[in-house]
């Protein structure tokens, strides 16, 4: 009789699970795959996101855990973390897996644009139209809020920090993504 052939998992790499361990998430190995996380997941009710499966793939070091778009459908509501019978910080692990995904280039164009906005203005949702200033005044609060919007020097501070950490590299790469998108639209 012929041996069974592995046609599902072609190669088990351990770098993703090792990265998790290095980042202080060694307890991922304690996952018993009970599925409590998936059962309580409000996103999994309506999408293909399966938290248990994400953790399993991460343990096996499968690259697809990072390339699957489902990784970005978790709203970080923390229900899985609270209910995990092994007390695993599942949501924090998902956030860390997203970091690994971004480092390997798996990021949605919309998210890159958001990074760009953050770099340019210091806000995820900035005042980008005068109507917001007028609206503020109409509610009796200062026309410009006492935030980074008051002076360009504050935005500079934020940008210096982003560059100092090295996250600007991801954002520059966002500019390319934008160009490619525009080229596609043409």
């Amino acid at each position, binding site marked *: 009789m012929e041996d069974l052939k592995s046609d599902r998992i072609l190669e088990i790499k351990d770098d993703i699970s090792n990265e998790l361990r290095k980042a202080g998430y060694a307890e991922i190995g304690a996952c018993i795959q009970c599925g409590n996380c998936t059962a309580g997941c409000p996103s999994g009710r309506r999408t293909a996101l399966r938290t248990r499966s994400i953790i399993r793939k991460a343990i096996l070091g499968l690259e697809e855990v990072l390339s699957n778009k489902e990784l970005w459908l978790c709203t970080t509501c923390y229900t899985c973390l609270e209910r995990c019978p092994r007390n695993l910080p599942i949501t924090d692990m998902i956030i860390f897996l997203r970091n690994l995904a971004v480092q390997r280039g798996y990021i949605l164009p919309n998210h890159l644009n958001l990074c760009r906005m953050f770099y340019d203005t210091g806000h995820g949702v900035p005042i980008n139209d005068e109507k917001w200033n007028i609206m503020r005044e109409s*509610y009796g609060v200062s026309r410009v809020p006492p935030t980074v919007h008051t002076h360009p020097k504050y935005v500079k501070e934020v940008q210096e*920090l982003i560059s100092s*950490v090295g996250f600007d590299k991801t954002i520059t790469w966002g500019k390319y993504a934008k160009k490619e998108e525009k080229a596609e639209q043409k």
Partner: protein
Amino acid sequence: MFYPNLIRERETIMSEKNLRYSLYLGCVIPNRYPFIEQSIRNTFKELGIELVDMQGASCCPAPGVFRGFDIATWLVIGARNISIAEENEADITLGCNGCYATLLEVNHQLKHDKEKRDMVNKHLAKIGREFKGTIEVKHLIEVLYYDFGIDKLKDYVKIKFPDLRVGVHYGCHIIKDSSHRPWGGEFEEPRFFDELVEITGAKSIDYKDKLMCCGAGGAVRTASLEVSLDFTREKLENMRKVSVDCCMVCCPFCHLQMDLGQMQVNDKFKDIIGESYKLPIIFYNQLLGLAMGMNPGDLGLVAAHDLKGVPPFISIQPFMEKIKEQMV
């Protein structure tokens, strides 16, 4: 981990001091929902709680979005924001669950992990700032419930609204991760927000999946608007089934999702929802202010402009009518 007895201890310590906080605004409150800012500033003034602005504060940065992209950037920018409050020598208070998650978590991690703090301070030194770890981060709901004290707050209530049926929406990050939150580890059936609503005489009506997420967080609204709106549709349907007069929130991103998102649900899901949803979304300080006898015009409940395409997208008039009926 916080425990109830610790909380009580902290409460008594706080009540002996004058209450003074750095007000962290975030992004959505000042830049899209300024009427929430008006209601926070005016109710706190009325309660005698001093608020100091945080000059030059940026995005917290958002815990689902930017923390998901790069944890180191999230820590460093979060620490910069905290350092502004440290200069003010006043604990942070804020009205956004997302900002709460970020600043509470960053503050906690940097206070307890010297390696991380050194890394962060190396970067902050380049712009002449430092994270010292001298302050605490508190949601304004926490300030009202513990620091000011819900019992003392009851004395400020002048008008009660017993006919008002409220669907309370906590949002996720005010409760969870519960090990770092001041609610005694409770995450399945918290009561603090319901209690705060009920001191106004209003009734907090239980509804299916009350603690479910609004759908906006974790970068999902940006990743897939449709998935995020489907959460909102489900919440709206569950609240419609118990016929509430309004949905009460304590987070501007939930507010945006339930308000702007409600309009989008009415459009995108019109074939399956039947009648359009018309549920007014109210921020807690707006209701509290009304109960304290304050003018609706000081609580962001009256729009004195003729701008188009600005919140609230779902009319709050049905809520105001209900309030007026009970004021007579």
